[in-house]
């Protein structure tokens, strides 16, 4: 077994250790580790084009408006300002489009799924659960 495989299997066997090991690039981690840290440390994360006050794409604007309608804090990341993260987040989730929403550390989906879950009431449930309500 290679060392690479060993080091990969250890954090998988212990999710808490994996979260603890997640590091930003500034802390010496790679881009996937940084994304892992962002989605594990924030209840709701939105990777978008632009920012909530100045969205640069209709889908991102809609996703941001939906999340804002719940009156909860969410962590918004402008991927247009970070080319490495723009590509990294697609690899992280194996999802080819942006925006991307993460709730409670889990990938929820893109703007179509967010919209459907908003309309069905499932998003309200997921947000409540993520905030421990």
């Amino acid at each position, binding site marked *: 077994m290679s060392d690479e495989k060993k080091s990969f299997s250890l954090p998988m066997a212990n999710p808490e250790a994996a979260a603890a090991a997640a590091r930003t690039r500034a802390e010496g981690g790679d881009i996937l580790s940084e994304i892992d840290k962002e989605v594990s440390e924030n209840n709701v994360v939105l990777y978008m084009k632009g920012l909530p006050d100045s969205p640069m794409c209709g889908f991102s604007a809609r996703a941001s408006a939906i999340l804002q309608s719940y009156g909860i804090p969410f962590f918004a990341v402008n991927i247009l300002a970070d080319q490495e993260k723009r590509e990294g987040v697609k690899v992280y989730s194996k999802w*080819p489009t942006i925006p991307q929403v993460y709730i409670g550390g889990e990938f929820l989906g893109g703007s*179509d799924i967010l919209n459907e879950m908003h309309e069905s009431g499932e998003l309200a449930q997921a947000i409540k659960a993520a905030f421990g309500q």
Partner: protein
Amino acid sequence: MIEPDAIVAKIQAAIPDAIVEAHDLTGTRDHYEVIVISQAFEGLTRIKRHRLVYEALHEEMKAAIHALTLQVYTPTQWEQAQ
């Protein structure tokens, strides 16, 4: 840019029973709304359904398609939605 018929063909190649409609939203052949109805979606989560379609359009998603909004249904769900 990609023609709507090419999108339909790509998806049907990957999901043979799929009924597919591709609507050009902007007239520029790169912003599309795509509706896919297939028995293959039965029992799959939303994420898995969307991934099936994205995988079928893997090459096109890199450049030809700039924006894609997806609606995916099983035949039963499609009937209920009408």
